[in-house]
């Protein structure tokens, strides 16, 4: 890793700690900090760390202690990230004139939330003061500690003698948006649990905090339901292509330990072909003239059995997944099959829907919303649900995914007072030759017409890696470091925009990911000191 000089000697005499207010032009000096923190003050004064002596521990003022698993695990993990992947050279002691940094003490100020799950209003802010011999990481909650540990680990590098080195620094940081997500799709291709866990690791390196688990879809139903085991027995690709309750628990806990929420998506009434195999009469039988064609369409919205099934099913989901939100999908509902079905035509007449099948869709979604409210959960939906004039309860989050005119859509949704998640410009499954991360990086999520109140309704965004052409073989290099661009856009200040500067930091950051075992692909020609070895 290359160390760049500071070039600010004029302040040297003034303070031991040299204040540099994140000027964009020289931000690349920050050793590949990614995403760039809110404020960074760095001094040219160097401290050295020795793997044998250095220790991360609890400050005596902290509300958390050794019984806080989330922190104990994080301390161990970050010690490994900092020291574990290097060969330790015991260089000649005389080359180490720098004073030593012996400890990082962590202090949680408010109730630590050690045993809680993160949520959309979790406080992720922290401050980090690096000074010899003891650095202090302060945060209101454990979530901020996790983010601060990541930043701390990014500050440390090996000098040319192999000595672990850090600049005296003062960092204050908090995210710009509270919802920073990655969507994975385990229905088009099954992803082994290991791959999901590896993705959670990489998400933590990039300060993402939501795993949007698009768990089922037309192609397969890998979620093993306790109440309806036939869904995955019949609807998964094979009996080994399933997520058992234990797998799901492992993912949720692994994510929690990294301050990441897991939001499952069970997309209905469309995208539900795979549900049909294990749940008789759930899908609409399509007709060809007067006879059933043998194919099925979306979920059948006119039967009481549909809603009693959904009640039981989502009751299970609400207990299995601790997050307050469930993603209900609602995108791309095709009406032909409904149109072909005489029972549905009759129902339409009865209800006075005319031939407006959107009204039928609305009817379905509304009933589904009621079910979700009964189990005390919040809902996220794809934008069609809003577009089709479903009467949404306040607080339903609308995810904007259609690329055409997404800024207008953001205006409309927020004008109605609904929270928005942006994904439209961040479909990472669409690959192209060259440095497409720049395109993702240049997106400004609040660049739409609206009042400042409307802007506050944008709670964040998600990078989506749909699975048509993605499985465990290519997920990691396709996701990283391209998703990192989205990570910084959602975390860092609006005015952190220089893609030249980002390139420099991201190059260092991708090599760091590779060193930590994440096969992130290169941005361009060049090399890392520690290449990924297959």
């Amino acid at each position, binding site marked *: 890793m290359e160390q760049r000089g500071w070039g600010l000697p004029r302040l040297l005499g003034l303070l031991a700690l040299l204040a540099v207010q994140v000027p964009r032009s020289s931000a690349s000096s920050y050793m590949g900090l990614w995403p760039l923190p809110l404020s960074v003050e760095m001094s040219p004064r160097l401290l050295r760390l020795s793997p044998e002596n250095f220790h991360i521990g609890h400050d005596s003022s902290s509300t958390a202690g050794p019984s806080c698993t989330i922190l104990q695990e994080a301390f161990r993990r970050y010690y490994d990230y900092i020291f574990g992947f290097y060969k330790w050279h015991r260089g000649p002691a005389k080359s180490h004139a720098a004073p030593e940094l012996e400890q990082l003490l962590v202090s949680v100020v408010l109730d630590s939330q050690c045993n809680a799950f993160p949520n959309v209003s979790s406080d992720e802010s922290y401050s980090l003061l690096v000074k010899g011999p003891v650095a202090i990481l302060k945060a209101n909650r454990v979530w901020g500690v996790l983010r601060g540990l990541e930043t701390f680990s990014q500050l440390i590098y090996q000098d040319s003698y192999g000595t672990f080195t850090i600049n005296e620094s003062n960092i204050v940081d908090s995210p710009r948006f509270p919802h920073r997500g990655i969507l994975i799709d385990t229905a088009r*291709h099954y992803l082994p649990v290991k791959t999901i866990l590896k993705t959670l690791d990489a998400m933590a390196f990039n300060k993402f905090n939501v795993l949007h688990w698009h768990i089922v879809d037309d*192609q397969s139903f890998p979620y093993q339901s306790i109440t309806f085991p036939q869904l995955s027995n019949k609807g998964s690709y094979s009996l080994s292509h399933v997520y058992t309750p234990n797998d799901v628990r492992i993912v949720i806990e692994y994510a929690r330990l990294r301050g990441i929420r897991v939001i499952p998506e069970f997309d209905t009434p469309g995208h539900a072909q795979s549900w049909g195999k294990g749940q008789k009469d759930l899908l609409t039988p399509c007709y060809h003239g007067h006879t059933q064609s043998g194919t099925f369409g979306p979920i059948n919205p006119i039967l009481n059995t549909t809603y009693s099934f959904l009640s039981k099913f989502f009751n299970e989901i609400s207990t299995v997944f601790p997050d307050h939100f469930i993603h209900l999908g609602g995108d791309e509902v095709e009406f032909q099959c409904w149109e072909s079905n005489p029972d549905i035509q009759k129902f339409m007449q009865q209800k006075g829907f005319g031939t407006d099948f959107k009204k039928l869709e609305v009817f379905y979604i509304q009933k589904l919303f009621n079910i979700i409210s009964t189990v005390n959960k919040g809902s996220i939906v794809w934008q069609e649900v809003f577009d089709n004039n479903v009467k949404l309860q306040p607080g339903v989050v609308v995810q904007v995914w259609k690329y055409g005119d997404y800024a207008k859509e953001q205006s409309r949704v927020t004008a109605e007072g609904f929270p928005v998640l942006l994904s439209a410009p961040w479909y990472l499954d669409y690959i192209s030759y060259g*440095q497409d991360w720049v395109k993702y990086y240049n997106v400004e999520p609040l660049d739409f017409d609206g009042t400042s109140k409307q802007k506050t309704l944008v709670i964040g965004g998600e990078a989506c890696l749909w699975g048509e*052409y*993605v499985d465990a073989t*290519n997920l990691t290099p396709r996701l990283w470091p391209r998703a990192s661009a989205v990570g910084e856009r959602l975390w860092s200040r609006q005015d952190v925009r220089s893609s030249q500067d980002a390139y420099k930091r991201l190059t260092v950051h991708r090599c760091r990911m590779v060193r930590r075992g994440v096969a992130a692909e290169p941005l*361009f020609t060049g*090399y890392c000191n520690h290449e990924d070895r*297959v």
Partner: protein
Amino acid sequence: MAGSALWFFLLLAAALAGRATALWPWPQYIQTSDLRYPIFPHNFQFQYHVSSAAQPGCSVLDEAFQRYRDLLFGSDFWHRPDPAEKQHTLEINSLVIHVATPGCDQLPSLESAENCLETFSQLVWRSPEGTFFINKTEIEDFPRFPHRGLLLDTSRHYLPLSSILNTLDVMAYSKFNVFHWHMVDDPSFPYESFTFPELTRKGSYNPATHIYTAQDVKEVIEYARLRGIRVLVEFDTPGHTQSWGPGAPGLLTPCYSGSQPSGTFGPVNPILNSTYEFMSTFFLEVSSVFPDFYLHLGGDEVDFSCWKSNPDIQDFMKKKGFGNDFKKLESFYIQTLLDIVSAYGKGYVVWQEVFDNKVKVRPDTIIQVWREEAPVSYMKELELVTNASFRALLSAPWYLNHITYGPDWEKVYMVEPLAFDGTPEQKALVIGGEACMWGEYVDSTNLVPRLWPRAGAVAERLWSSKLVTNLDFASKRLADFRCELLRRGIQAQPLNVGYCEQEFEET
């Protein structure tokens, strides 16, 4: 390569048919039936036919037998079957190999026997109960084109040795037979030369870790040989040589800004005797290190602006009567280089610019066509090259580093290399083609899924009959082949939605 050694014959005296559709690339002739025979791993053996020219002790085949035994059955211990169950069926207990012409120690030797083993391994399938079967099958096979290559670029990004060896494995699975090693380029010089060690010391990304030692190179060549793969090394000059400069002072042309040297350097300096002395020594080494008859000498994309700026070169141009035609200077360089390499008894391959710029080359030069549109379409270029009686290699439509959303292998697959206007004699001059994986955006993190199974599409185009062009038929087989690659531990990416019994697992 002798044509006679390139066909093989796979006749299973006792044999079955379900799995035959999993073959990739598709053989020239196949007849298969529903009659199936079980194979019991502990009983099964590969054998040499008594009248085979190759016999035990032939390392290429002995090792291939071992490799394919592991690929077929894994390295687990296999229980002896219950004798009662065994008696009912006629089992396959050997594959007898008959090699017509010897050549165990030669370089591209026994490729056909190797390819036969690969085909055999693709025919074996496993029932849900775990028994191995093979259907009664008769196959006669030979490649359509003798040169079926894959290019890796180890200069834009260094590829660890394991990535290269892994690529050679999959090349063998898909019957590629030439590894085109684009060893060095502008960004780095990882080849450790023993005559000019400064080249890597100063020109590699990291002279301790990002280099190929003599031992590494030997290992690659031997690993390739055991799989019937030639190693065609490329040392591209006079352009694409920035990384040579730091370790070979005086080799590159100093560029001028007005009357002063600007401090930057251009292509190899073609006007100095020292340049040719250097190249003589360097290529003498390369000729002895790389046993293949051919060397790839590059010759693409020479940028003339630096030559133009240099007053010494301007003088030289005048003296030689080249006027302002820097192509003539390029020709001068290339011709001198070709003479050097010919003197070492080597043949050579060059990129198409050498032909386009009308460099006078030996008639046995192979021209590699890589430009899709300019100066002419690649089909037109093939026409021109073969019309001038040169042999041609096609790469233009097969730049696999270029990626797009969706099943882009189909476009790659549907290329017909001989779809240009020309006589049968001209068509015969197209000796094959190469899939190219340039390294600007590729290193060991994404090489394998980007390469496989997409390169498989090129492999079949170059191996199978011209008539094998049905996309549905190909999709099914290629999807099966990619699952087979996963089973063999290769991180090959999916073609579309779906699954494999054995998915790739992170380690």
